[in-house]
């Protein structure tokens, strides 16, 4: 089986009001070095091994449901592991 980590973030061209608010808060805490904060989502999927190509499946899941590609980008990490 596979352990899949999916990261969804707003596209660079899209303003991130949450990230901006957090950046300002960090600045007010005197972390002036922080030049950008982007807030996103992190998801963990466990996928059983099948005859289907796991990467193609994950990609499809991301673009159909897990991310809205109008405003979001996604990336993923797939790790094969032994079921316990």
């Amino acid at each position, binding site marked *: 089986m596979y352990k899949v980590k999916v990261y969804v973030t*707003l596209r660079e061209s*899209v*303003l991130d*009001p*949450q990230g901006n*608010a957090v950046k300002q808060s960090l600045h007010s805490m005197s972390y002036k070095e922080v030049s950008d904060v982007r807030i996103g*989502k992190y998801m963990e999927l466990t996928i059983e091994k099948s005859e289907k190509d796991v990467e193609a499946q994950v990609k499809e899941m991301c673009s159909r*449901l*897990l991310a*809205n590609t*109008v*405003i979001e980008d996604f990336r993923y990490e797939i790790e094969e592991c032994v079921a316990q």
Partner: protein
Amino acid sequence: MKFAVIVFPGSNCDIDMYHAIKDELGEEVEYVWHDADSLEGFDGILLPGGFSYGDYLRSGAIARFSNVMKEIKKAAEAGKPILGVCNGFQILLESGLLPGAMRRNESLQFICRPVQLKVEAPHTMFTSAYEVGETITIPVAHGEGNYYCDEQTLAELKENNRIVFTYAGSNPNGSIADIAGIMNEKGNVLGMMPHPERAVDSMLGSSDGLKLFKSIVHHWRESNVINA
């Protein structure tokens, strides 16, 4: 004219919508559960506001895969009037029936108050009862109403008069080009963040929303009833 109010788990403006149609507009209306297989017999479809599926993942993202959405797509292709308000608008965006996407409000606050809207496209099946350039008062209630689309889509919306309502005066959520409501290319699917169903009686502060529903009925009568 017979309307369907689609009810998702987490819808919370369905009763307001039902009331607006039945008691204020005086037309037929029924609730339709999200797993329905058919929308036969309905002349207009209303997607109400609320928090379908708890807004999990993204507003409207899960509702979009409900069984009834296949029927809503068919109805859209058949040219039936479809109105999505607030969460209903978000579902129409997620399903691809309308272009673009919603972001969190620029202020990050949930905004719940009456706003001024400008009727940008008065010659549609949803707005024919309004005057050209009329300013109306309709309440908004949302945390994610900050409409976004790419430049090409925006140009296309402008060129084809598909921006139906804009916020007049101040923009409450930061939406691109002050957009409050847009429609599809065919002109039969409208999505809007403000709640016309909450502005159907002057006792509630405004009755400006009623004209929207009256426009839909007027259009339907003209095209479906002999000697209308």
